[in-house]
C-alpha cells in the first residue's frame, strides 16, 4: 500500500464518525472534511457579505476570499490566468455554457461535433440539443467492449468539418483514462475547438491545462471534497473574451442603459447574479486540503487500492468486471455478479453498511454497448481502506450464496 495517514484523514471527515459506513460511491459525490465545512461555516459566521459591491470592510473580506478561491483553483490546474476560471454550478452547467454561448453562435449546417460513446449524459445531451438547433451533425468515437475508446478511425472521424471535439477524460463507469492529449492533437490539426470533461479526473490526478492545451475543460467541486452547486469552466481567455454571455443580469455588465448593455470582463461576464460565494470558498478549502496531502500521493494511494480491489474482486466466482484490461484506469470499478440483479445486490450491500451505486450511471450508450441494463459501481477516494474492500468482498460472497 502506498502510504497516506489514513486514520488522520478519516478523522477529518465527520461522516466517518459512523464507523459502520463504508462509502464506495465517490465517483457520484464525495464526503467533506471538516476543513471545508468549517471554511463555509466561518464565512457565514464571521465575514459574510456580498462580493464586488460593498465599500465596507466585510464586503472586501468576502471579495478577497472569493477571489483567492479562484486563484487557488487556477493554480491547481496550472491555468496561467485566473480569468480563465469561470465559476458555474458544476460540470453540467459548464458544458451547457459552451453549448449555448459558443456552439450555437459559431456552428452551422455542415459542421460536425465529435464526442464519444463513453460520455456521461451531461456531455451528450447539451450537444444533441445544440446540434439539432444549428443543423450540425453529432458524431461519436465508438467504444470497445473492454471499456476503451476505439481510435482506429480517428482520422476519418476528425475532419475539416469537425469544429468541436468534447471528450470525457476519465470514464465514470469504467475508470478508463482516455488518451486525451493525442485526441486534442488530432483536433488541433483541423483547428477544432477542444473540450475536456474532467469531472472524474481532476479529483484524483494532476491535470495541467497548459500541458493539455485544450480550449475548454470542466469539473465539479462536489466530486473533490467541495460543496455542491459549484464547478468550473476553464476556457482560454481569448475564446472566453469572444463569447456572448450565457445568462444575464446583475454582476455581469459594465453599464446598462434603457437600450443596451456592455459586458463585464471575463470571467464575470459569465457569472450573472450574486455569485456562489460560500461554495467557492468551500471549494477553495477543498483544494487546500488536497494540496496539503498532495494530489500525486492521493493518486498513488488510490492506484494501490485499485490494484487490491481488482485482485480481490476477481477472486469471486462469476463476478464480471467491465474494463480494467489495459492501459491506465482510475479507481472506479463497474461489475456484475451472475444471477443477482445489481439493484438487489446494492440493497444487500446497503444492509451491511456498504454504499455503492447501481444503475446506468448516466451513461446509457455504454450500457447498450455492454448489453446490460445496469452495473454495480464501486469507486474509491483518499479516505477508503483495504479493510473496506475486504468487507465489500465478504458481503458480495454472502449475497451470492443467499441468491443461489
Amino acid at each position, binding site marked *: 500500500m502506498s502510504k497516506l495517514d489514513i486514520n488522520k484523514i478519516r478523522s477529518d471527515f465527520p461522516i466517518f464518525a459512523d464507523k459502520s459506513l463504508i462509502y464506495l460511491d465517490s465517483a457520484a459525490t464525495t464526503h467533506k472534511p471538516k476543513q471545508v465545512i468549517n471554511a463555509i461555516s466561518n464565512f457565514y459566521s464571521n465575514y459574510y457579505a456580498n462580493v464586488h459591491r460593498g465599500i465596507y470592510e466585510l464586503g472586501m473580506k468576502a471579495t478577497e476570499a472569493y477571489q483567492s478561491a479562484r486563484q487557488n483553483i487556477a493554480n491547481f490546474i496550472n491555468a496561467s490566468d485566473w480569468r480563465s476560471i469561470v465559476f458555474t454550478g458544476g460540470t453540467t452547467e459548464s458544458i451547457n455554457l459552451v453549448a449555448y454561448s459558443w456552439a450555437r453562435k459559431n456552428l452551422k449546417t455542415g459542421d460536425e461535433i465529435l464526442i464519444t460513446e463513453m460520455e456521461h449524459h451531461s456531455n451528450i445531451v447539451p450537444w444533441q440539443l445544440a446540434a439539432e438547433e444549428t443543423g450540425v451533425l453529432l458524431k461519436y468515437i465508438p467504444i470497445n467492449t473492454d471499456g476503451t475508446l476505439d481510435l482506429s478511425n480517428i482520422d476519418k472521424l476528425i475532419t475539416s468539418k469537425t469544429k468541436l471535439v468534447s471528450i470525457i477524460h476519465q470514464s465514470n463507469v469504467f475508470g478508463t483514462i482516455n488518451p486525451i492529449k493525442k485526441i486534442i492533437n488530432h483536433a488541433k490539426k483541423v483547428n477544432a475547438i477542444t473540450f475536456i470533461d474532467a469531472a472524474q479526473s481532476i479529483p484524483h490526478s494532476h491535470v495541467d491545462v497548459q500541458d493539455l492545451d485544450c480550449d475548454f475543460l470542466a469539473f465539479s467541486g462536489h466530486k473533490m471534497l467541495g460543496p455542491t452547486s459549484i464547478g468550473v469552466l476553464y476556457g482560454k481567455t481569448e475564446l472566453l473574451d469572444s463569447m456572448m454571455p450565457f445568462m444575464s443580469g446583475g454582476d455581469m455588465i459594465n453599464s446598462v442603459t434603457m437600450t443596451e448593455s456592455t459586458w463585464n470582463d471575463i470571467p464575470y461576464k459569465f457569472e450573472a447574479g450574486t455569485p456562489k460565494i460560500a461554495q467557492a470558498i468551500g471549494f477553495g478549502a477543498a483544494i487546500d486540503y488536497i494540496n496539503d496531502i498532495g494530489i500525486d500521493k492521493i493518486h498513488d494511494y488510490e492506484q494501490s487500492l485499485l490494484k487490491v480491489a481488482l485482485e480481490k474482486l476477481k477472486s469471486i466466482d462469476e463476478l464480471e468486471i467491465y474494463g480494467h484490461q489495459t492501459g491506465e484506469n482510475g479507481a472506479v470499478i463497474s461489475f456484475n455478479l451472475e444471477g443477482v440483479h445489481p*439493484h438487489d445486490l446494492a*440493497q*444487500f450491500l446497503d*444492509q451491511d453498511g456498504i454504499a455503492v451505486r447501481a*444503475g446506468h450511471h448516466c451513461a446509457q450508450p455504454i*450500457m447498450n454497448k455492454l448489453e446490460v*441494463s445496469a452495473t454495480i459501481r464501486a469507486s474509491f477516494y483518499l479516505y477508503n481502506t483495504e479493510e473496506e474492500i475486504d468487507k465489500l468482498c465478504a458481503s458480495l460472497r454472502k449475497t451470492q450464496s443467499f441468491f443461489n
Partner: protein
Amino acid sequence: MNELQELYQQVIIDHNHNPRNFHKIKHPSHSAKGHNPLCGDKFNIFLTIKDDIITEISFTGSGCAISKASSSLMTEALLGKTVTEAQKLFDLVHNMVTTGLANAKDIGKLAVLSGVHKFPVRVKCAILPWHTMKNALDKSTQTAITE
C-alpha cells in the same frame, strides 16, 4: 432473519430463478411495455381476454428480483380472473406495497410482496408490472403488435 432477508424469502427467490409464464403470447388481445428508466427495468405484459376473462397472461423482459417475481406472481394470480377483478387486485397490491397492509384472504400468495413497503425505493420495482398490466387493460394494443 432481518427485514431484507424476510422480503427476499424463498418465494421471491424461486420466482426470480424460475419465472412462471415467462414467454410471449403469439396473438395477445392486450399488451403493454413497462419501463423504469431510472433502474433500467423493462417488462412486456401480454394478455388474451375473451368474454371479459383473462384466458392467457404472460410476460417477458428483465429487471431485479422484486420486479421479476412480482411479474411472475401477477401472471399466476390473474389467470382466469375477470377484468374487473384484475383492476381490483391492482388496487389491493398497490395499497399493500405502499402500506404493508393487506387482507390475507383477498391477497393470497401475493402477500410475500408486502415487505416491500419497508424499502421505499423498491416499491416502484414491485408495482411496475402491475402498472404495465393496467396500461394493457386500459388500451387494447392488438394492432400495435407486430411480429
